[in-house]
């Protein structure tokens, strides 16, 4: 799912033509200003790692849910069994099987949406026009509460076909709404920027502040306010209203709490307003969820960057150290060579002083002569290019002076 990139700094500055796109999940959207299409693919290892992470996340969630819910469930089960026994004992003319039969029928009736409590007359149908409208809406947005569901074969077949056509349609609509939200946000941010630029605040600060404001304002308008309204009208607790809002706007839609699903007398315009809220709230939530997804990406990118930086630092350090080594070797060999030169010149002086016994002494210098030549030829240009050529140079020089040294030392000895 790539939802609107409303919080991308680029989109705030470039108020270019809104860009709708049909993304993978039909109810989410991805308007991108700069449609940079890079034909790239993730490595297998990364995908596998993320997949394992998701599995781990699921297992952890399962364990936590089990720990939280199982005690409650056992308590409820005990309570209801007690109720049954109590009922049977107070009303002795009822036998087990009759009661169970009744309960079974009642449960399946409730599943079909018929509430046998009270009498027939004061009931609104679950399939009158406004409720069917609401049901159609839940199918199209893929929320799917399930408190109402079709029971006839014809209804089910029609539901399939209806959803096949309606879900992409809703995807388009959501893309459009999200887009408008994005442009409004972009314009507002631009105006805020113009204001703040006079006060010489850095751009990143403005972006961060505007993002935070967007989140807060959106939360207030699409989450907190509706939750308060539901709490007041439906009589739920604060947590239950918030729970309903989140479960609906992420399109999970359990159906244990449904706005407009209880036996209260609702105002006429209540359900259409709820539907409209769902539409805009879905666009907002798609933005928030994509932002969270962006954070995951940024975090993974940052981690990669940091790892990359560490690697780069390590490589740099290794390169420096090896350069140091090579430099030292070069210097050492130069010193050795200098010493050798001096020794050779002293020797020559001595030999010229002492007479003609220089031929055997010439051989060691002769052996080293090619080294001298290459040395003299290559020494001057090498100096500016220390690392690379120096290393080659060192390699070339490395062997010979040693041999030469040995010869000199032998000779001098």
């Amino acid at each position: 799912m790539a939802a609107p990139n409303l919080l991308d700094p680029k989109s705030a500055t470039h108020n270019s033509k809104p860009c709708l796109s049909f993304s993978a999940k039909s109810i989410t959207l991805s308007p991108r200003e700069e449609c940079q299409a890079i034909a790239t693919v993730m490595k297998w290892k990364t995908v596998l790692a993320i997949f394992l992470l998701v599995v781990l996340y699921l297992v952890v969630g399962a364990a936590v849910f089990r720990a939280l819910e199982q005690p409650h469930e056992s308590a409820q089960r005990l309570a209801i069994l007690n109720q049954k026994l109590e009922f049977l004992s107070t009303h002795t003319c009822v036998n087990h099987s009759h009661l169970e039969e009744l309960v079974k029928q009642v449960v399946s009736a409730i599943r079909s949406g018929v509430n046998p409590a009270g009498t027939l007359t004061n009931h609104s149908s679950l399939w009158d026009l406004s409720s069917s409208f609401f049901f159609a809406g839940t199918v199209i947005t893929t929320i799917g509460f399930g408190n109402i569901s079709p029971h006839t074969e014809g209804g089910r077949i029609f539901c399939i076909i209806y959803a096949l056509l309606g879900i992409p349609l809703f995807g388009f609509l959501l893309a459009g709404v999200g887009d408008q939200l994005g442009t409004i946000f972009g314009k507002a941010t631009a105006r805020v920027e113009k204001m703040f630029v006079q006060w010489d605040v850095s751009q990143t600060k403005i972006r961060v502040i505007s993002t935070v404001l967007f989140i807060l304002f959106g939360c207030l308008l699409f989450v907190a306010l509706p939750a308060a309204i539901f709490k007041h009208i439906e009589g739920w607790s604060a947590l239950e209203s918030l729970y309903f809002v989140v479960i609906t706007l992420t399109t999970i839609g359990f159906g244990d709490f449904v706005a407009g699903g209880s036996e209260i007398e609702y105002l006429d315009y209540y359900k259409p307003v709820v539907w409209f809220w769902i539409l805009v709230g879905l666009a907002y939530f798609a933005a928030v969820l994509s932002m969270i997804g962006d954070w995951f990406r940024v975090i993974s990118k940052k981690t990669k960057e940091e790892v990359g930086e560490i690697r780069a630092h390590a490589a740099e350090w290794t390169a420096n150290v090896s350069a140091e080594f090579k430099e030292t070797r070069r210097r050492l060999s130069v010193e050795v060579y200098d010493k050798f030169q001096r020794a050779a010149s002293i020797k020559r002086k001595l030999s010229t002083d002492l007479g003609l016994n220089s031929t055997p002494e010439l051989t060691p210098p002769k052996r080293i002569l090619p080294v001298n030549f290459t040395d003299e030829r290559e020494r001057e240009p090498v100096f500016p290019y220390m690392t690379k050529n120096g290393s080659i140079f060192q390699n070339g020089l490395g062997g010979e002076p040693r041999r030469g040294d040995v010869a000199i030392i032998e000779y001098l000895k």
Partner: protein
Amino acid sequence: MSSWYKSWILLTGFILFYVAYLLFGAFVFSTIERPVEDKLKRDIQVLKEEFLNQSCVNATSLENFLERVLQANKYGISILPNSSASSNWDLASSLFFANTLVTTVGYGHTTPLSDTGKAFSIFYALLGVPFTMLVLTACVQRLMHLVTYGPISMCRQKIGLEPLAATAVHFAILLLVVVLGFFVVPAVVFSYIEDTWSFLDAIYFCFITLCTIGLGDYVPGEKPGQNFRSLYKISVMVYLFVGLMMMYLVLRAFHRMADLHGLTSFFQLPHCDEDIEEDKEPIIEAGHEDQHEAEDSAKPLDPASQTSYNTINR
């Protein structure tokens, strides 16, 4: 200014059309379902009266009792004797629940009862939903190259079809394979395992699940005394995940095909591709996928030439 104006007009048009579509659906559902509902109402009233006539129970105590039973039933607890002794919150079922939460299917056959459970679900969903979407998109991206680009280029090279025809043929085959493999075959399996489901019910279930609507009127593995319940639930989870991936794949292939055939420009949707992750390697050629590990530079394509299969093959 005119493009902005146009986009507003387009949006209003969409909204109106969408409202009309909803009204149409409401009307049809109402016409189909309402008679059945009325009959069921009458039947249950008759049943209640019969029960009350035969026994010494008075109406109010029965009402109270029924209310309590239904309240418990809403959370998946049944007082019928052959209800499953296993909990709704053992590890496999909790895993199943977490999975329905995170893929936004949300059946609702079991819902958190405690306040802490509800609060935890909120945070879990807020993190888990984008996470799952990320994973699915990543897998689909990878699969696209195996399933779409590869066969299409092969198609073009060996059979020598034009790109337009090749993509259409490929999309038709892909659709057929997905429908057979992920709707028909699982529906047969489900209708066999679950006694009370007919084949139509099973197909309905597969469709409602894979579109992540998740009404919850049919949930596999809820039969009392189900053999290998944990294994069954986990395999349903795997089916859900893989099925969702295939739906995304089909949708993506359709989008690419629509781009190529110019449908996207007809609907005035610019060609936007999503770059989801930065740690990608570029595909130099569709056929040389083994060598892409060596390359490190990304070649950005501009939007106009982006999604045609030609550019990818180059």
